[in-house]
């Protein structure tokens, strides 16, 4: 099963916008290492930026793949921009808001806003990052290169996520 970096899709407007959330938990093993205590500093468990980029890539990738009912193999091809100005520690929730800028048979360009909801009595999301991505439809862009016929990009992990989020495996559905 693929390592999923989003917990649930909470909004989907086909071909336009997807919002997903990720709860950060101290139970996640990578937080034990990122960052470990040193002789001079206590441990600082925060979600690694690379995994936040992956979370946005999964969110935007689902939005792009959903546009053609996951018929094509759409892969992350370029991180055009990735900026974060706050850490997400245990108990925080990350909201990934992915928006399609352009989408055609060759691929897609998406913009993404990362929001952070810190644990409190009145949790309010605040914008903490921007992650813009490009996706390539390798069925249309990699002429001469043979890929397996089955869609290895959108595998079982994605299907489980879509089902538990109430998103059907097809177009014109909305959460």
């Amino acid at each position, binding site marked *: 099963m693929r390592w999923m970096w989003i917990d649930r899709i909470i909004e989907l407007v086909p071909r336009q916008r997807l919002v997903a959330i990720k709860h950060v938990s101290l139970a996640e093993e990578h937080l034990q290492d990122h960052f470990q205590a040193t002789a001079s500093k206590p441990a600082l468990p925060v979600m690694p930026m690379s995994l936040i980029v992956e979370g946005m890539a999964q969110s935007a990738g689902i939005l792009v793949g959903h546009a053609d009912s996951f018929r094509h193999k759409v892969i992350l*091809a*370029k991180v*055009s921009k990735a900026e974060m100005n706050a850490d997400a520690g245990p108990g925080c929730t990350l909201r990934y808001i992915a928006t399609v*800028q*352009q989408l*055609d*048979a*060759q*691929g897609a*360009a998406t913009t993404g806003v990362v929001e952070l909801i810190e644990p409190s009595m009145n949790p309010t999301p605040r914008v903490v990052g921007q992650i813009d991505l*490009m996706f*390539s439809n390798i069925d*249309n*862009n990699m*002429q*001469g290169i043979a890929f397996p016929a089955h869609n290895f990009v959108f595998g079982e992990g994605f299907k489980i996520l879509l089902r538990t989020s109430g998103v059907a495996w097809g177009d014109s559905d909305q959460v």
Partner: protein
Amino acid sequence: MTRDDIFKKVQTILVDALAVDDDEVTMSSVLTKDLGAESIDFLDIVFKIEQAFGIKIAQGELFPEGGAQDPKFVQNGKITADGLVSLKGRMPHVDFSAFEKDPQIAKVGELFTVETLVKFVEMKLKK
């Protein structure tokens, strides 16, 4: 829109897409060799030109696609005479004069300069 206006917009696009400085982007800069463009950057550039100029670019219209596996168009790593005719017909915005003396497929990427993009946009806007 003047050629200079188009160049300035193209320059902004390339600075954004390829993370280069504006003074690196001159009319004669080669997208691959001088500005470090890779294959996925070509799609990014197409998307950004579409947005900036409000035009639609068909797949393979700005940059060549397909044909590399067709022996009619490519043999022994070189583009054949038929291949050159096909490319020239599909890409009037590209200057093939130097390339056709030694039309190696590996050097196709070097055909695309900033001027190529400016000419292409000029042609699209006139249509």
